[in-house]
C-alpha cells in the first residue's frame, strides 16, 4: 500500500512540523556562524571536528530516543557506555585481541540493557527509577573495575578506529549513520518496531491486542544498552582510554537532543533522522560558539536556551500558526 509506505517513511523522517522546525534551526546555526566567522567555522578542520565529535552523542541520543519511544527513559545509558569502555580497555590491556575486547564490550552492554529491561518490563519498575538505580550500579562497577583511574595504554589497532577515514569521512561517522539506519529500519519496518510504537502510544491498547509488553520492553532496553556499548567503544577509541566518569553530562545532552529532534517523551513517536540532525546541530552550535572564541560555558547557556525555545515552540507553535491561518481567512 503506497499510503502506508509513505507513512512509515514519514515516521523515520520525522513529523512534518517539528522536523521542519529542527531543519530551520540547524540551517540557521550554519548560516549565522558561517557569516560571523567564515574562515574558522567553514574550515575543513572545524567540519572534521564536528564529524568526529557527533557520533558518540548521536548514538547515545538514539538510545535515549528508543526508550522514549516506549514512553520510558534510559538514564543509565552513559554508565553502560563507560562500563563497556572500561571492560574493553581492561581486556585489551591484559593482552586480549581487539576483536575479543569489542565482543566483551558489546556483551557487557547487552547484559546491562537486559537488567534494565527485566526491571522495567517484568518487574514493572518505572523506567526512570530502574535506570537511575542501575546507572548508579553500572557506573559503580565501572569505577571498581577501572580502579578509579583512566585505563590507558590501548593498542593502536583500537585507537586507529577513531582516526581512519573512509571516502574522506571518518569511519566513526559512517558507524553512526549505519547504526541510525538500523534503528530506523527496526522501528519503521519490523514487527518489533510496530509493537514498540504501539506500547509507547497506548500501553492498554497494546495489552488488549495481545502484545507481550514485557518482551517488547526487554528488547527495547537491550537495544538501548547495545547502542550505549557502541558509543562507549567510540568514546574510548577517541580518548585513547576509558574511565567510569566520562561524559556524565551526556545524559542530559541526550535528552536535550531527543527533545530537540521532536521525539515525544510520552511515547509512540521517534524520528531517527531528526535525532542525527539534532546531534550534529548541537555540535555545530558548540563549535560555532567556540569559533567566536567565547567561553565554553556560554555553549551550555545556549544549549539550555535552545531547549527552552524549542519546547516553547512545540507548545505554542500550533497556536501561532493557527493565528496566522485565521488572519489569512479574514483578509
Amino acid at each position, binding site marked *: 500500500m503506497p499510503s502506508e509506505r509513505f507513512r512509515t517513511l514519514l515516521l523515520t523522517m520525522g513529523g512534518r512540523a517539528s522536523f521542519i522546525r529542527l531543519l530551520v534551526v540547524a540551517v540557521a546555526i550554519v548560516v549565522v556562524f558561517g557569516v560571523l566567522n567564515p574562515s574558522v567555522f567553514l574550515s575543513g578542520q572545524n567540519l572534521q571536528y564536528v564529524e568526529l565529535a557527533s557520533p558518540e552523542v548521536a548514538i547515545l541520543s538514539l538510545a535515549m530516543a528508543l526508550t522514549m519511544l516506549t514512553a520510558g527513559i534510559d538514564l543509565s545509558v552513559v554508565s553502560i557506555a563507560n562500563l563497556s569502555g572500561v571492560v574493553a580497555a581492561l581486556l585489551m590491556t591484559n593482552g586480549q585481541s581487539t576483536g575479543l575486547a569489542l565482543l566483551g564490550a558489546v556483551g557487557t552492554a547487552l547484559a546491562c540493557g537486559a537488567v534494565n529491561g527485566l526491571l522495567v518490563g517484568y518487574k514493572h519498575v518505572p523506567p526512570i527509577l530502574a535506570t537511575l538505580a542501575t546507572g548508579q550500579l*553500572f557506573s*559503580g562497577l565501572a569505577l571498581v573495575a577501572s*580502579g578509579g583511574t583512566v585505563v590507558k595504554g590501548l593498542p593502536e589497532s583500537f585507537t586507529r578506529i577513531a582516526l581512519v577515514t573512509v571516502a574522506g569521512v571518518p569511519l566513526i561517522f559512517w558507524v553512526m549513520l549505519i547504526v541510525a539506519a538500523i534503528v530506523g529500519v527496526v522501528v519503521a519496518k519490523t514487527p518489533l518496531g510496530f509493537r514498540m510504537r504501539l506500547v509507547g502510544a497506548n500501553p492498554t491498547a497494546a495489552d488488549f491486542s495481545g502484545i507481550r509488553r514485557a518482551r517488547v520492553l526487554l528488547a527495547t532496553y537491550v537495544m538501548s544498552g547495545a547502542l550505549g556499548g557502541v558509543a562507549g567503544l567510540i568514546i574510548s577509541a577517541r580518548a585513547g582510554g576509558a574511565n567510569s566518569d566520562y561524559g556524565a553530562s551526556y545524559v542530559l545532552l541526550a535528552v536535550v537532543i531527543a527533545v530537540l529532534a521532536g521525539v515525544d517523551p510520552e511515547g509512540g513517536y521517534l524520528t531517527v533522522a531528526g535525532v542525527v540532525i539534532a546531534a550534529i546541530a548541537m555540535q555545530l552550535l558548540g563549535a560555532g560558539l567556540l569559533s567566536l572564541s567565547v567561553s565554553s*560555558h*556560554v555553549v*551550555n*547557556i545556549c544549549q539550555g536556551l535552545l531547549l*527552552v525555545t524549542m*519546547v516553547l515552540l512545540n507548545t505554542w507553535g500550533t497556536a501561532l500558526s493557527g493565528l496566522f491561518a485565521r488572519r489569512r481567512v479574514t483578509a
Partner: protein
Amino acid sequence: MRRVLANQELLLIGLMALLVLAVSLKFPDFFGLQTLFNVLTASMVGILFAVGVMLVVVSGGIDVSFLAVGILSAYATVKYGPQGDGPFGALPVFALSTAIGLGLGLVNAAVVIVARTSVLIATLATSSIYLGTMFAFVGGEVISTLPQPLQSLGSTHLFTAKGAVRGTTSLNILILVVLVVCVLVWAFLRFTIAGRSVFAVGGDAEAASRAAISVPRTRVLVFAIAGAVAGLAGIISVTLSGRADPTTFMGRELDTLAAVVLGGVAIAGGKGTVRGAVLGVLLISLVTASLVPLGIPTIWQRAAVGALLIAGILLQTAIGRRQRIRPILDAPAPEVTNA
C-alpha cells in the same frame, strides 16, 4: 507483615540499625558519638537538597536543577555579597543566598508553566543555563578565603566530645538550621492548605484543578520553596567546607534523587514525607561510613548504593503494584483522561 514491609521508613531504620550492629560487633568503637556526628555532618547538605527535591517530586515532577541553583546562589553570594563582619554576622550572607535560590526557583516555575513541559526537561534546560552563567559570568575559580562571618560560623560547634580513639569530634551549629528547615517544610506540608494542595496536584493535577486548587500557583510555591532551600543548602555547604568551589556538586544530581527514592517518595508524585527523604540521605551516609570498617574499599560505595537502590525499588514496586504506572515524563496536566 505486608503493612510493616510497606512502611519504607521503618525498613530504612531497620536497615540502619542492622548496619550499625554489624559494624559495631566488629569494632565496638563504631557505636558512639563520633560515628553519629560524622554521619550527621556528612548528611547536612544532602538533607536540605533532598527536602527541596522531595517537595518538587511530590508535586509531580523531577527537578534536576537543584544543585546548580545551590552552588550558583552560594558562589555568587560569596563573591559579591557582604564581606565584612556586619552587626548581624552571617545572617545577611545566608539570607542573600536563600533569596537568590528563591529567584532561580521562580525562573524554573516560569519555564515549567509557560512552556507547559515536564519538570525534568525544563530543569535540564535551566540547570545548564545556571551552571553556564556561573562559569561564564560569575567565575569558575575556587574562592578559599570566605567572608569572616562564614569562617567563624564554620568553626562554631554545637557539641564537642572526645573522639572515640583520639582527638575531639564535633557537630557544627548549622545542624540546627537544617533541623528548623525540615520542621518548617514538614509543617507546611501537613498543616497548611497550600501544603495539602501539593499532594493533590502531584497525585492528579486534573482532579486537583477541578477541586478548585490553582495548579500554577501551587507549582510556583513549590519551586520557590525548593529554590530557597537549595540556595540555603549551597551556602551551608560552602560554610562547612571552608571554600567556595563551583565544581563541588557537578554531576551529583542522581545521588540526591536516589536518596529521595530510597526514602519512599513516589517518583510519579503525590506521595512522600520529609522524614523519608531525611532517612534516605542518612542511610546513604551511614553506608558510606560503614564500608571502610567492614573492610570494603570506599571505591565500592557507588555500586553499593546502586544495589541498595535496586533492592529498595523492587520491594517498593512489588508491594505497591496497585498503583498505576504512568509515563515519567508526563506533562503537568494530562489532557487525556483514561476511561
